[in-house]
């Protein structure tokens, strides 16, 4: 890479590229999520400090790697955040937007770096915009007029002339301050101005302290309560620890009569303002007559200050999770090996039972079978552990949706709240990697077509805010993911009409409601009157369904006109090793994933009826649609068809199907092996496996079989 080759004097930066990318992606994600939180909360010092540190780290790492554009942007962002955390600027919508734009831009640049390309994305505009904002802040009058996310009620008379007070903290007070910082509390200097000729100023100070103690802790008051009463000053400063936003503190204090102005700034003594503090505290050492204690301490404070800056741990209350990063290739290799072990074990079991058949009472045979049994239990445990290695919390996918919804809501002028549940639900990593896009599409769909505009919602008696709920949970042997909105619901009549108009169904075809909704998954279907760029081009839904069925899952819709729509996605839990029911169809053996099997039946051929061209049988009062695997896979029929057949009832949730097979062979553990790129998309086939006897067996894709039968086609 030309950008990095010449830098850093012979150290090969390429080695560190992967590490840099991993780290930077994390920082950017944190920055993005933190900005969204900041938008909601306003002036939270702990949060702003974290954002500052993220920008700072990014800048440093990118500088080392020589990625100048990223450095330029993160440097300007860092400046902006620095001013925010010092209280010299207020958090505003404009600042949040521009910082979010920066995270987007850096993400794009990181992608270019990842692909070993030059960074070509422009950044000068963003940088100069940020510099503009900083320049503007220098003029305090304009600042008062800026639209703030949280407005601080400060009287104009109070000059924006912030001076760091010398609180002359003694040892216990300093310790309290440092401990609080480490725990993520903000330390603030609260300057209070009293009305002229206020009597009993000390009592006002007591009242102020009282209010602040209600939301934090007051370390000190300067001048002291006694001095306040004797002297002529009409203001005092409090050193306060608080985890509430500045605006809340101000509001509380200004409710006290005779308090005319409140100015609150983060108290950063010990972080970068060390010089000032040490100087002013040495002055205090000189005054012998002082009611303040332990004057020797300040020197210590100064010395500590030099150590503190980098030493301050991340105060956001992170619980250290003990994890290590593992190369996914290594993990896949491990899983492969375990898979092979499972197959080999099955062979051993086969051999063991063959031996038993031949040498019933031989001790060695018995020993072998016992060992096999034990091995089986070990294999189960090993398998489970290995499968869990691949499990990733779905929260990692959910993470990008708040931002998506925020931006889409802004774009469409709708007010939408996104509720995330079940973020801890774990999925196989391959599923997690692929599920993001379909979910994103469904969410976009909800925003665009589901949730109505605030006016429409109010008109129909709903709240202005629409809610989209994303939920993930384990349901039996599957994972269910729900995307629910409380919007307009699907117009089933409209859908039906369009399907007829597009020739997707016959005009007189009677469909139950649940299936009309599913029509939107057919290719070429779209009810959007005009094509918006969000969704509605008619290529979306069928792609979603396809992507999901590739994962062996299905999607279902429930909707009520005027109330909302819910998409329910069901996915099998694991993809690599499964329990399967082996069945014989003609001369072939197939494996049916046991998790999708509800039951097996022995059915008389005579009981199989044909309705609308499709075979079915009555099962406990309901109609069970059937599919003949012999026909489906175009296998030669046996010479003498038996009078009875086995039907394996399979399905997900409410959708069921019966597979007509000739024989049931039994249950077995099976390792799914992909068929490779050439054969990947065979309808009805999910993969292949090798049985104990060495034979290759195809594994059925229940999802796609269901789709064939249950989505009506002409």
């Amino acid at each position, binding site marked *: 890479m030309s950008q990095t080759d010449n830098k850093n004097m012979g150290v090969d930066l390429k080695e560190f590229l992967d590490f840099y990318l991993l780290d930077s992606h994390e920082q950017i994600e944190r920055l993005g999520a933190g900005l969204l939180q900041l938008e909601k909360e306003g002036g939270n010092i702990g949060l702003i400090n974290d954002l500052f540190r993220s920008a700072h780290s990014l800048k440093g790492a990118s500088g080392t790697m020589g990625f100048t554009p990223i450095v330029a942007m993160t440097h300007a962002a860092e400046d902006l955040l620095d001013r925010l955390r010092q209280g010299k600027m207020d958090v505003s919508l404009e600042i949040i937007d521009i910082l979010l734009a920066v995270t987007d831009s850096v993400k794009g640049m990181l992608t270019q770096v990842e692909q070993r390309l030059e960074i070509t994305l422009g950044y000068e505009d963003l940088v100069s915009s940020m510099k503009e904002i900083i320049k503007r802040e220098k003029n305090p009058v304009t600042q008062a007029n800026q639209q703030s996310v949280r407005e601080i009620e400060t009287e104009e008379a109070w000059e924006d002339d912030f001076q760091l007070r010398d609180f002359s903290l003694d040892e216990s007070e300093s310790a309290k301050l440092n401990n609080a910082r480490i725990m993520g509390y903000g330390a603030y200097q609260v300057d209070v101005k009293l009305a002229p000729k206020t*009597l*009993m100023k*000390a*009592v006002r100070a*007591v*009242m102020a302290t*009282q209010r602040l103690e209600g939301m934090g802790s007051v370390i000190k008051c300067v001048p002291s309560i006694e001095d306040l*009463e004797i002297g002529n000053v009409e203001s005092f400063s409090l050193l306060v620890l608080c985890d509430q936003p500045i605006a809340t503190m101000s509001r509380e204090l200004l*409710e*006290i*009569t*005779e308090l005319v102005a409140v100015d609150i700034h983060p108290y950063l003594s010990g972080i970068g303002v060390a010089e000032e503090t040490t100087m002013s505290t040495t002055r205090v050492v000189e005054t012998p007559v002082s009611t303040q204690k332990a004057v020797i301490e300040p020197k210590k404070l100064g010395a500590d200050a030099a150590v503190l800056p980098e030493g301050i741990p991340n105060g956001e209350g992170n619980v250290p999770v003990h994890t290590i990063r593992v190369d996914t290739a290594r993990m896949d290799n491990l899983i492969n090996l375990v898979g092979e072990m499972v197959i080999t074990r099955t062979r051993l079991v086969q051999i063991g039972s063959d031996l038993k058949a031949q040498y019933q009472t031989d001790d060695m045979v018995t020993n072998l079978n016992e060992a096999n049994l034990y091995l089986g239990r070990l294999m189960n445990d090993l398998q489970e552990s290995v499968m869990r290695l691949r499990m990733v919390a779905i929260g990692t996918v959910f993470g990008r949706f708040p931002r998506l919804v925020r931006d889409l809501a802004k774009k469409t002028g709708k007010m939408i709240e996104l509720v995330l549940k079940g973020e801890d639900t774990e999925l196989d990593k391959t599923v997690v990697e692929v599920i993001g896009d379909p979910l994103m599409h469904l969410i976009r769909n909800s925003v665009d077509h589901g949730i109505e505009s605030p006016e429409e919602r109010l008109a129909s008696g709903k709240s202005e805010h629409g809610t989209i709920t994303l939920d993930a949970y384990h349901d039996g042997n599957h994972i269910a993911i729900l995307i629910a909105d409380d919007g307009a619901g699907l117009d089933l009549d409209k859908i039906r009409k369009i399907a007829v108009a597009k020739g997707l169904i016959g005009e007189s075809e009677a469909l139950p409601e649940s299936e009309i909704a599913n029509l939107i998954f057919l290719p070429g279907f779209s009810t959007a009157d005009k094509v918006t760029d969000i969704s509605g081009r008619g290529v979306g839904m069928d792609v979603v369904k396809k992507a999901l069925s590739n994962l062996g899952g299905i999607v279902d819709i429930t909707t009520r006109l005027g109330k909302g729509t819910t998409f329910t996605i069901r996915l099998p839990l694991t993809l690599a090793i499964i329990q399967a029911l082996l069945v014989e169809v003609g001369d072939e053996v197939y494996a049916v994933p046991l998790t999708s099997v509800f039951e097996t039946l022995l059915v008389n051929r005579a009981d199989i009826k044909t309705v609308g061209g499709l075979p079915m049988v009555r099962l406990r009062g309901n109609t069970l649609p059937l599919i003949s695997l012999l026909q489906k896979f175009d296998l030669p029929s046996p010479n003498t068809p038996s009078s009875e057949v086995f039907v394996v009832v399979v399905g997900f949730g409410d959708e069921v199907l019966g597979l007509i097979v000739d024989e049931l062979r039994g249950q077995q553990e099976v390792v799914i092996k992909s068929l490779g790129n050439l054969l990947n998309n065979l309808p009805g086939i999910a993969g292949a496996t090798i049985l104990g006897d060495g034979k290759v067996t195809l594994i059925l894709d229940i999802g796609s079989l269901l789709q064939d039968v249950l989505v009506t086609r002409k």
Partner: protein
Amino acid sequence: MSPTIMIVDDAAFMRMMLKDILTKNGFTVVGEAENGVAALKKYMGLQPDLTIMDITMPEMDGLQALKEIRKRDPKARIIMCSAMGQQSMVIEAIQSGAKDFVVKPFQAERVCEAVAKALK
């Protein structure tokens, strides 16, 4: 209905002055008392929205009365009236739940400001 206020002070002149200020500013004075004991009794009967209470009074001083009233009605809104030099008593009153205080001699604006804020 304008907010109801009870005035407690042992000096009749003070009570008159306060009544004047309050009535002219839209508040309704529903009762007066000249010491803590009377205040306590009248409070339970009148249930005023706000009480203005002088600190130095015979029989039972304002601080004591404050505590007694708030024991019976924790939501009681009470503003203390103090003369200079009684700072520590005022502090104790604040810490015992008084909403605010005014210092004699009064300034009408300060009194009204305190009353308005306490009634919020």
